[in-house]
């Protein structure tokens, strides 16, 4: 598949996820898309069955206890102590022991080896930096992975504690400032899965989302080579040189890097492949020229408290910028 075809494929998958059968379950614990999430989901249904039964029995006992005809000298069935000992301690003890064994034996810890893909994910207030160290690709707020194989995530935070969570694929793993937590995920089938920061991290914790895009192995390879090729090609033309001057002049370059250019700052998200980005503002809105224009004009209105300042621009500069950024695939 060529690049446009990949995009069409992704768009189709998104459409299916968003409005197709099954509804909007792209961020759901109960709609697993990996063996690990599946195991946890099974564990939940098992616990629900067991614990639900326990709950119903306890409440039934309470109702029976209240409703029973009065005895002259009331006493619990089998004698008070035996009733409490067996009903309240022994039986729950057995049930809880079974649960413990089941939970320890649940196969949720995934690992791979050196041949598997490594991705560094770094949490920032309030966006996600995504680096492919061996492929030399840096993107933000979306993670492309090949389907069917374990992917090693090296999770870390650049500031406060964040937590990485894509419920359809696996549970959470915190991102700490002091050390890297290694976490493995995999996706069974191609698709787009939404993830979100799960540890309160300040003003815009609510809009610190991202997407995991799972592609077939071929599509993924295609995606990688495409990015690498474009990173070199797309900044070369004279037209873009002019746009880049605007970019630097109005101040974008003070925070955002574009590979192969004079913009090297690492404070905000890397914009080398911005045009291919699916969302703006870490999951806030879909990325298109209209939303991008709104974002550049009033970032504090779109996402109050985020660290991007207001920029003063003429209409020409704005158009130039929007065109430039959307062209960076």
């Amino acid at each position, binding site marked *: 598949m060529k690049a446009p075809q990949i995009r069409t494929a992704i768009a189709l998958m998104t459409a299916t996820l*968003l409005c197709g059968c099954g509804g*909007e*379950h792209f*961020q*759901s*614990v*109960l709609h697993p898309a990996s063996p690990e999430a599946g195991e*946890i989901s099974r*564990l*939940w249904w098992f*616990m629900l069955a067991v*614990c639900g039964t*326990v*709950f119903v029995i*306890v409440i039934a*006992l*309470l109702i029976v*206890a*209240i409703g*029973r*005809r*009065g005895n002259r000298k*009331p006493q619990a*069935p089998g004698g*008070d*102590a035996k*009733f*409490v000992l067996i*009903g*309240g*301690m022994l*039986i729950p*003890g057995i049930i*809880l022991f079974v*649960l*413990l064994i089941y*939970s*320890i034996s649940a196969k949720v810890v995934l690992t791979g080896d050196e041949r598997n893909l490594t991705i560094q994910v770094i949490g920032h*207030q309030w966006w996600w930096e995504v680096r492919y160290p061996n492929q030399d690709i840096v993107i933000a707020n979306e993670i492309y992975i090949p389907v069917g194989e374990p992917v090693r995530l090296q999770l870390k935070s650049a500031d406060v504690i964040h*937590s990485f969570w894509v419920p359809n694929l696996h*549970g*959470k*793993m*915190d991102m*700490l*400032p*002091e*050390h890297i937590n290694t*976490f493995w995920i995999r996706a069974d089938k191609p698709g787009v899965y939404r993830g*979100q*920061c*799960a*540890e*309160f991290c*300040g*003003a815009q*914790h*609510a809009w610190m989302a991202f997407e995991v895009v799972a592609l077939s192995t071929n599509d993924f390879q295609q995606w990688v080579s495409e990015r690498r090729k474009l990173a070199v090609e797309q900044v070369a033309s004279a037209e873009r040189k002019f746009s880049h001057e605007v970019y630097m002049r109005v101040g974008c370059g003070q925070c955002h890097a574009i590979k192969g250019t004079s913009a090297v700052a690492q404070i905000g998200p890397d914009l080398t492949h911005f045009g291919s980005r699916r969302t703006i503002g870490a999951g806030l809105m879909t990325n298109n020229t209209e939303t991008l224009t709104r974002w550049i004009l009033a970032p504090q209105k779109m996402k*109050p*408290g985020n660290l991007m300042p207001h920029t003063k621009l003429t209409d020409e500069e704005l158009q130039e910028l929007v065109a430039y950024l959307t062209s960076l695939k």
Partner: protein
Amino acid sequence: MTTRPLTEFEKTWSPGVSRAARWFAVVNNQPLGKRYMLTAFVFFTIGGVLALLMRVQLTVPENNLIDPHVFNQLFTMHGSTMMFLFAVPFLEGLTLYILPMMIGSRDVAFPRLTAFSYWTYLFGGILFYSSFLFGTVPDAGWFAYTPLSGPRYSGLGVDFWLLGLSLVEIAGITAGVEIVVTILKLRAPGMTISRMPLFVWALLVTGVMILFAFTTLLVATVLLEMDRSIGTRFFDSAAGGNSLLWQHLFWFFGHPEVYIMFLPATGIVSMIVPTFAQRPIAAYTLVAVAMMLIGFLSFGLWVHHMFTTGLPPMAMSFFTAASLMIGIASGAQVFAWIGTLWGAKPIFKTALLFVFGFIFIFVFGGITGVMIAVVPFDLQVHDTYFIVAHFHYVLIGGVVFPVFAGLHYWLPKITGRMLSETLGQWSFWLMFIGFNAAFFPMHIMGFLGMPRRVYTYPKSLGLTEENVIATIGSFVLGIGFLVFAGNWLRSLRRGERASENPWHAHSLEWSTESPPPNFTFGTPPIVTSREPLWTKTEVPAPQNENVLRAQKALSNAPERWRATLATDPLKAEPHAIQYLAGPSYQPFLAALGFLTAFIGVLVKGYLVAALGMIFAAGAIAVWLSPGKRWLQYVASSPASTESGLPVHPNDRRSTAWWAMLCVYAIGITCFGALFFSYFYIRLFSASWPQNGIAVPELQLPLLSYGLLLASAGTFYWATRAFWAGKKKRTQIVLAGSFVLGASFIALEILQFSQLEFSPRTNAYGSLFYVISWTLDLFVLTGLAMIGAMQLRMLNFFENRIGFTGLQMRITAMFWYFTVIAAVAVFAVLYISPRLFA
């Protein structure tokens, strides 16, 4: 009934002579307990309004009604208020009010400490909420994870949070001491440990838990405040600190905290169920054992809040197992209540209705609690709305419902007026239905990807219906609370007068008038069974003559000073007359000094802070010095001779001796938390000391710590001379101990001036200094106590077996503890870096 002139005895127990005294000098447990509960309810109402504001914002997706900054402040204040300013203080207030009555005492063990506890709580709460006036409301969440709550990522709001909270923690710890000693020492004769009402059992366990848990939190909040104010590096990963250390310390407090709220609540239920079933509780012993088990296990659970931080799986399984054992202990209690009700045809009053609501909601919340203790499942639902649902089931179902049951049960005793049953039932059903509508849908929200603490959520998650239902439910719940408040206010004017025992209940608080007199019991009650009011007519076991003699001696007496019977902690045999202090302004002034000091830290005016502390220390010194007038009253009173019991025993018959054991628990926890931090940070450091700092030299510390160790020897010598009645020798040798202790402080200062690092250098430096300073603080306190002892001996040496002897005993207990702590500090700071280098 007020026409009769007050007797001398009644005057002695009156809360205060003037209006000002009744406000600020009152030390009686009843008015203070009521104030505690009322203040807690005001905070509860505010916290509830904050919650409703959040629900309004969350009703529809992508709502812009409330700004994200404001929303973060709302949930921070809501959680902190409900945990720190409502739940624990309310239960403490209820305890202060009802506990003495339930165990047959006239007041709690340390009346002035009650007042101090109330004032620090009130001031802490006000400090906390004054952040609204300055527009810097805390916004880092109720558990304030570092580094978000550290100096780099948050503003002054977190300082308000930490300092206000510290005052409330001090209030909590003092209430813990109060509760433990009152239960152990002031029970009515015959109320042996196996006859204590289950509410008292619950409070005993809770009181001990408070000492360990709240002290840990106090240490954690002080460390974080130092990071923020004087620039230490405990939680700063850029300088060798560790942000997870905060989580360990916080949850070592935070998990027991849940049971500190929950155990008293189950205690309330265990009092109400037997009353309305009109039979004793089933399996009393198992319930008491279950409560102790919960208290013990709760300290081994903290990591289950940290399953997603990347800890080794084996360690996590251990915490799962411990968490599940709580399930067994809770199961025992639930089955005890069901067993008690079995075939008993209970009387359906509102209080019992709330108990049924509690059992339904709590069993549900307990079951989801079992689920989230299972690591893989928790990895998914941790920090989602599933957790929000779970802990509201546990805290509203497990704490608020029993509290309301308790209010419907005990308010007639407190106010002397019955509540309306009709309004009571309305408030119950509104609360029950509203609660479930508000919180059940949140389980589903969690599964469908809604994390906690978000000010909004995307429409595409498809959570609108659930959120709309939750918001409607929360308002119904709020209306239920309002109906209760209306019921209560109505009862004050129009409620039917309550008799002594309107429910035909079993425990001692129902044997006194409603509302009770200031002295609670004119004649100290004697107990012969677990349900004293139900077995009263039975022939009492042959009474010990001493018991009857003590009862007679204290019957509406002594007249001019406050006293109650002190008994043995296990067998509850009378062994002393406990002197209780009368009205005093000192607790209020001491609390005011603390408040000033904390405000000083807040505005970084350290001179103000120091003056505040000096003022507080002065007030405490006056508080502790003997009032000559009272001493004369005691000396001239016939109570001691008539009862054959001492008034000021100097050994473990005294309440102070038991309070010292509580101080030991607090001190051990304090140093334990600091040592844990030291080794935790060392564990994650590449080298130790960090950044090539040299291990501190041994010569000077060997000398200074050696002198301190020697002071324990001279102190022992002084006590020998003291008990032998040699005044001069005692004074000289004790002065020697003072000099040795003071030279330790001097040498510490000299040593600090020679060190190449400061508390700001890195986490090692912070730990080294703060551990040393903590020890220095203990030594300085000990020196003050030795000084006070010297003063006391000048005038009262003759009273060696009385209060002077008690003071000597207490000073010795404190000094020996300090010296042992010094040995431990020396081992940690100077020896341990040389081992396993």
